[in-house]
């Protein structure tokens, strides 16, 4: 196989040539990646390595009118452990201490945690949940537990921070304060104030920051500053008064529980401004417990029943077709129109009574007859008058879900009008309002005819700066003439004040109220299901009203009671009563310092002695011990007084009229 050098070299050149070609191929490929595919991979580089991280803006807080926090965002932490990260040595060393600490924290046994953690490690669980939803303080505590304190890379600690919306006042007014919730499908639900003003004020503007990946799932910021600085949301100051809200909530809750009602709501509104001071909506769940379920006050329209009699009479008074002193025959409590009967709650009716009394006793027949007589020929006029009082339009509230009121109109063909529509309307059937819409009208009466829009917001602030103040909005400057308003006010006042009034049970000597009861049948088309809506709308004090308030309770247990005065009235009274103790009608009280003659006399005697005896022992027997001590210690000599017992001095160790020396001790014995 003779090999010579030439032979080797030839073969070598071949091999070297091959390698050179290989080298060229590498260079060619290099060029191709750089120049032909360069853009693609550069883009890919950006995509894989750089990402825009959203820095969520802090959502603004919701405050009550007194500055209490109603809704705020706080960080919550989920803490997990990567059971594989810790070294075997660390794991065995710290397993028990960690389990002990966790056990102390959660109350589960240490053995449970030891077992679970061992299992997690055996199963290569790199994401084992230790605790969920803990606050910052707990998070800092858990972070320092054995093993976890070694950190993410040695201890396997995984911390995930989320921001949760909290309502510090608990369930109170929760539905009205609201929230913004996004489900898995991306649908957003936004009830209440938080929902209504979330997008515009609370949310703020999210920031953005470019981050670069640095391996191990870690990202570092690309630049010092954020690309887009997050702008925190504004704070929203509501008109809710926490105290009134609390009163309303508990008054309503108590009554709902008493009457085992299905649900109910209460709204308290400041008369002059329309600011909602309290709004409580309680519904019953399967277990019979009540909590804020739906915003009934804003969203649930129902037939008003007797509370609408005020609107009906307002129209008739304004048209000067009916007056308070008109006499109407209630005809034994039953009147029939087209075969349908209007009944009074009192069997046998009220006889011939004035319109005012018909209203006060809430006589259905009386009011219906008066309205029928006045408008039978011209029902459009009645409807138009209601329209003039803005009863047909919704309140255009920021909180979503407010339905439009329903008023049958003979000119509108929507199936609502019928031969008995006018009569039925007169006592609140066929018409439908939300509690807040009804309250707005009652408030207008309280406010001398000025209808103001109910509002939930006082102002929007960014720290101390007011971004947007909310002024009161007048819907109608004069819903009716001054005379009509005065009549209506008198009627409402008499409902409570007059002994025959349906609201007389609410009457109190100490404070005045005005209002109208309402007991409305619900589901009356089916006698089996017949139920009631008990309501009470009114305001207080009766003169110069400060607040108006409506209470609506749906489906009270009929066996317990269902009349508006019984079911809803007490809630109204309790609220009025409690607010009154906070805001008395009488601002000035006579001085409490009533002089008492015996006290005066004692003081005189004491003063006399103190003025007379400066260095000579006085007779203190018979004086109160405290006076005696004070007297002696205030003399011009430094003496020590020793008191035995208490009450009236019986004995003194030094007799009277003896000159006292410095540092002398006097013993007083009292009983």
């Amino acid at each position, binding site marked *: *196989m*003779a*090999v010579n*050098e030439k*032979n*080797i*070299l030839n*073969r*070598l*050149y071949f*091999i*070297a040539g091959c*390698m*050179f070609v*290989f*080298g060229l*191929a*590498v*260079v060619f*490929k*290099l*060029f191709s*990646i*750089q120049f032909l*595919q*360069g*853009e*693609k*991979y*550069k883009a*890919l*580089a950006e995509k*894989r*390595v750089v990402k825009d991280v959203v820095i969520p803006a802090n959502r603004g807080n919701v405050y009550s009118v007194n500055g209490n926090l109603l809704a705020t965002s706080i960080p919550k932490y989920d803490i997990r452990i990567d059971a594989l990260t810790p070294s075997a040595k660390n794991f065995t060393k710290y397993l028990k201490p960690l389990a002990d600490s966790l056990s102390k924290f959660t109350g589960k046994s240490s053995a449970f945690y030891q077992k679970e953690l061992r299992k997690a490690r055996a199963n290569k669980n790199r994401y084992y949940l230790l605790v969920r939803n803990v606050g910052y303080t707990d998070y800092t505590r858990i972070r320092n537990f054995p093993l976890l304190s070694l950190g993410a*890379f*040695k201890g396997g600690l995984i911390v995930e921070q989320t921001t949760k919306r909290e309502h510090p006042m608990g369930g109170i007014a929760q539905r009205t304060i609201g929230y913004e919730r996004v489900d898995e499908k991306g649908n957003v639900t936004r009830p209440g104030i938080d929902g209504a003003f979330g997008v515009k004020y609370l949310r703020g503007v999210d920031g953005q920051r470019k981050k*670069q*990946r*640095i*391996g*191990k799932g870690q990202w570092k910021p690309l630049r010092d500053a954020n690309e887009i600085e997050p702008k925190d949301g504004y704070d929203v100051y509501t008109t809710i008064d926490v105290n009134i809200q609390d009163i309303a909530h508990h008054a309503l809750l108590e009554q709902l529980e008493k009457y085992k009602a299905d649900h109910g709501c209460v709204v308290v509104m400041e008369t002059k401004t329309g600011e909602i001071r309290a709004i409580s909506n309680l519904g019953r769940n399967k277990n019979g417990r009540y909590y804020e379920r739906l915003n009934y006050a804003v969203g649930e329209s129902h037939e008003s029943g007797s509370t609408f009699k005020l609107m009906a009479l307002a129209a008739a008074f304004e048209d000067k077709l009916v007056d308070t002193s008109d006499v109407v025959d209630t005809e034994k409590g039953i009147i029939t129109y087209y075969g349908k009967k209007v009944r009074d709650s009192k069997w046998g009716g009220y006889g011939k009574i004035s319109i005012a009394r018909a209203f006060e006793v809430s006589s259905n027949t009386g009011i219906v007859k008066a309205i029928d007589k006045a408008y039978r020929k011209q029902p459009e006029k009645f409807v138009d008058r209601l329209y003039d009082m803005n009863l047909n339009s919704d309140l255009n509230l920021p909180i979503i879900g407010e339905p439009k009121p329903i008023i049958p109109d003979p000119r509108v063909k929507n199936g609502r009008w019928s031969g008995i529509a006018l009569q039925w309307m007169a006592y609140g059937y066929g018409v439908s309002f939300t509690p807040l819409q009804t309250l707005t009208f009652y408030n207008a009466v309280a406010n001398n005819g000025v209808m103001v829009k109910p509002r939930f917001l006082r102002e929007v602030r960014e720290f101390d700066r007011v971004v947007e103040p909310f002024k009161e909005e007048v819907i109608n400057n004069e819903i009716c003439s001054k005379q009509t308003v005065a009549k209506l006010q008198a009627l409402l006042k008499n409902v409570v004040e007059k002994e025959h009034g349906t609201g007389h049970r609410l009457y109190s000597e100490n404070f005045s109220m005005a209002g109208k009861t309402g007991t409305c049948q619900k589901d009356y088309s089916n006698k089996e299901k017949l139920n009631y809506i008990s309501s009470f709308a009114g305001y207080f004090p009766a003169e110069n009203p400060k607040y108006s308030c409506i209470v609506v309770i749906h489906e009270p247990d009929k066996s317990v009671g269902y009349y508006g005065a019984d079911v809803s009235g007490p809630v109204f009274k309790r609220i009025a009563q409690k607010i009154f103790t906070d805001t008395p009608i009488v601002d000035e009280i006579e001085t409490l310092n009533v002089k008492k003659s015996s006290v005066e006399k004692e003081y005189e005697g004491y003063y006399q002695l103190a003025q007379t005896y400066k260095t000579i022992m006085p007779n203190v027997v018979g004086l109160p011990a405290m006076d005696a001590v004070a007297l002696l210690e205030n003399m011009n000599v430094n003496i020590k007084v020793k008191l035995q017992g208490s009450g009236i001095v019986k004995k003194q160790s030094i007799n009277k009229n003896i000159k006292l020396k410095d540092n002398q001790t006097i013993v007083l014995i009292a009983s």
Partner: protein
Amino acid sequence: MQTLFKNIKGDRLIWAIVALLAIVSFLPVYSAASNLAYKGGGSNTFAFFVKHFMHLFLGFAIMYGVHKIPYRYFKGLSLIMIPVVLVLLAITMMQGTVIDGANASRWIQIPIVGMSFQTSTLAAVVLMVYVARYMSKIKDKKITFKESVLPLWLPAFLVLALILPSNFSTTAIIFLMVIVLVFLGGYPLRYLAVIIGSGLLMLTMFILVAKAFPDAMPNRVDTWMSRIESFSNAEDTEADYQIEKAKIAIASGGINGVGPGKSRQKNFLPQSSSDFIFAIIIEEYGLIGGLFVMVLYMWLLFRIVIAAQKADTVFGKLLVLGVGLPIVFQALINMAVAVELFPVTGQTLPLISSGGTSIWMTCLALGIILSVSAKREEIKEKEENIEENPLEILSETI
């Protein structure tokens, strides 16, 4: 220093190229170290710098020491070393380090020093010297295939068989290099065909056995399969991930590169300081940097060819080629992987990649080459009177 330089023998240009590569290596290795330090939970990147420096320093010491040895001694040394290497390989395989359930025992702990050592790399150098020795021994004989089986192919296949379960790519490269070397040594081509055939046959058998009895021994057959598959199809696999990152690195480097230490992909490329260091070099120093490294290796190839040409004996020639070509070939494979010309393998970029074994064994090989070229210098000095060929002068200088 002066005396040290005086004592340096052999091809000065090879020394220069090696020195350049070593200097260049610090940049990407130090850059990639930041990620290693971060992942290791430490913060000291300088430790990696020092470590790399120590590796290179020791490498140069080996190179210097080896090149002082007259190269004829390597004949005997290789005979002694072959059984030693076989034992070491066996030990390495036995200890059974496992990566993700696959045999990845490539390392052996050196007692006392506490360093780990990749035995296959040493085995490759020893085997190449051994083959070179055999080929030069039979240079004047006409041998039959049978005659060469026992002294040549048995040790070769034994070595390869011991490396194969844990490292296919190294086995393949060594096999290819052995083939190249025996080809250069004038081994009949028809015998070569038989050898290549039987080599493939053995590989197939190994794979089949491994597939049939997956629990019989831990092996990496599945890893190879997936890597080759991922190279040939479009599905996303882990290897694709590495390659994609490498290509991103190359693409974002552009012509001038992003600058020293500014590589981003080093954070995501596994083995950024060894297997994929070429991609990092291009990302940081651009096309210019990449081509510079390529040129250095090509230049080294050229110098190896020159050294082989000038070697005074057939053994010298085969020795230079036997240990020299694998260095360049490995470099080319490494670069080819980075540019997706080749499936992902664990080949390092000689002298540039971090990692002691690779550096030391490369230095050992270079030491052997230099030893051969030093011998030639000696002869040349003795024959000063030989007339000078201008072409020879030229090739001496470039």
